[in-house]
């Protein structure tokens, strides 16, 4: 099996997280052929690839072309990390106009392409959200692909995992936490560390956004505007 990572506009954190796979990484080195991974090997052209992970969002015309080319060669194309899945916080660049950029950087900035998650450009076979992605979800997807399948998408909110870890609810204490709207699978890592959920994994499929905004603003006392601002980081697109 041939695999690889294509990195577009990103912090490369998912490439680094890939190298955090520990023992599994060495196993991978022996069992699969990595044909693309700029961080650790020369950039070579490859004609076909079984599993291509794409890290980063598309923000230039060149990246758009690269991604389209990659889709043609890949059997499975998987969005790796929140930049690729939902655009991440860098998506907010789309709301800054060029004049402001010119003023901040004291030079003429020209944006040739608005920043987009990769599924706006190509068909994506599976999504591994998270900033960074969850290692166990990547291991799971590779395991299933070997059987010719893809894992079922997680369809429950972060709250399930948070409660399972015995946390007290942030919302009950008047602190904005997006948990009820966000796709679980991260094992509530941030909330278990006393940091409220900012939604890096995006909405789960049954997320009732309107109801959340209304009831949280009414009962918790956080303004609708503030909730929407938070949702704009990873979710509202």
């Amino acid at each position: 099996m041939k695999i690889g990572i294509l990195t577009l506009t990103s912090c490369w954190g998912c490439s680094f997280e890939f190298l955090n796979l520990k023992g599994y990484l060495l196993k991978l080195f022996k069992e699969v052929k990595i044909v693309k991974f700029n961080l650790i090997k020369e950039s070579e052209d490859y004609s076909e690839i079984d599993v291509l992970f794409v890290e980063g969002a598309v923000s230039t015309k060149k990246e758009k072309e690269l991604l389209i080319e990659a889709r043609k060669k890949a059997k499975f194309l998987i969005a790796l990390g929140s930049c690729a899945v939902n655009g991440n916080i860098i998506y907010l660049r789309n709301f800054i106009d060029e004049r402001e950029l010119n003023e901040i950087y004291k030079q003429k900035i020209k944006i040739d392409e608005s920043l987009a998650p990769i599924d706006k450009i190509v068909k994506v076979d599976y999504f591994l959200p998270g900033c960074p992605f969850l290692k166990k979800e990547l291991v799971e997807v590779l395991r299933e692909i070997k059987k010719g399948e893809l894992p079922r998408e997680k369809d429950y909110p972060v709250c399930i995992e948070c409660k399972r870890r015995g946390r007290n609810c942030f919302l009950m204490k008047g602190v904005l936490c997006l948990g009820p709207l966000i796709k679980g699978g991260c094992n509530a890592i941030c909330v278990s560390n006393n940091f409220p959920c900012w939604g890096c994994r995006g909405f789960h499929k049954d997320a009732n956004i309107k109801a959340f905004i209304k009831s949280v603003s009414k009962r918790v006392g956080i303004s609708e505007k503030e909730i929407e601002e938070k949702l704009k980081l990873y979710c509202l697109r």
Partner: protein
Amino acid sequence: MKIEKELSKVEGHAKLFLEIEKNRVKKCFLEVFESPRYFEALIKNRKVEEAPYFAQRICGVCNVAHLFGCIYAIEDALGIEIGENTKMLRELMVMGGIIHSHALHLYFLALPDFLNKESILEFDKNELELVKKGLEIKEVGNRIVEVIGGRAIHPVTATIGKFTKLPKNEELKNLKNLLEENREKVIETIEMFSSFNFPEAFFDTPMVAVFEKNCYQLLKGDLIDSEGKIFLYKDYKNFLKEKVVEYSTSKHVFYKGKVYLVGPLSRIFIKWKSLTKEAKKYAIRQRLNKKPLNIFSANVARAIELLHFFDKSIELIERVELKEEKPRIIGNQKEKGISITEAPRGVLIYDLSIKNGKIKEINIITPTAQNVAHMEFMIKNFLKNISDNFQTEVEKLIRAYDPCFSCSAHFLEIEFIKETNSSISKSSKGISRK
């Protein structure tokens, strides 16, 4: 002959262009084509509490450095001082981040060069044992960040004034064991990298590092140069200036008008006396405290820093007390805040202003942005002494800086022969964009 090559085994997207004529390099430039994400614009107008969360996402490997660079600049503006134990936990996290970064660079990015292999993917069974060792050292760094910060990459518990959650004593005890169990591997790393034959790339430029009295300071300090001169952090603009260079269309950062180096080699040269005992012995043995220095020795410097950070981490784990600590307000709230900290690759400067609880303006000077002028300077001189394999040798030289191009989307151009009508029309003025 024209060569265009995308760099590999560096963090970020960059391309090397070489024009060779009659066995001499006529033109050489490095184009960083990493798409800028415009973090200075993204962070502007965000609430103060959100700024560190954004800042750390500038970089997937030096996120801990950016996190604390931002936090300290905010605390500087708001007059906040953290407790002693909070300080120690932060220092542990920063060291964990550097251990991760250095181990990764040494074993995954640099080692193939010295074993004459294209990448670790081409290593034979014995060489893969080395990668396993590197992974184990790297994992120690990751564990430190994970235990204290909640997650290895883009940690969550470190915030302005405090930690959202403290680690448990048991977890710190396990960290200490992990450090002790893997210490020998770090020694082997030093010995291995000290044994390699490096190409000659000597330099005698100024070097700059972060300064705090009597310690190998990483977090928040003033600046010190290789002559021992000290500058207050808030005056950094008097000494570190951006300038348009006549032979290059990009702005570079200069120290008192000269090209300068930041990073592990600079740190050890300037602060070797503050290294832990055994690390100091290695620094002296490898002559990293004496000029002339070879830029390739930066890898030996990284390995020695690994030992220092391992020993310092063990020391801090023994000293730290895990208890709730409230930050104190000392001094007045100012509009501006500045912090100077050491990232894995060198001096990192955060300069921001706050108004009505939001970030009004922010400027970030990363170590790689500062080293770019030095890189250009060294490539020029280095290429005079080599007669073939230019491409590979220049790449190795660039790699010796362990550049992080995500942190420094920037353009760099070098011309060896002056051309009356410049055919290089790429315009790349302005400050470094991320």
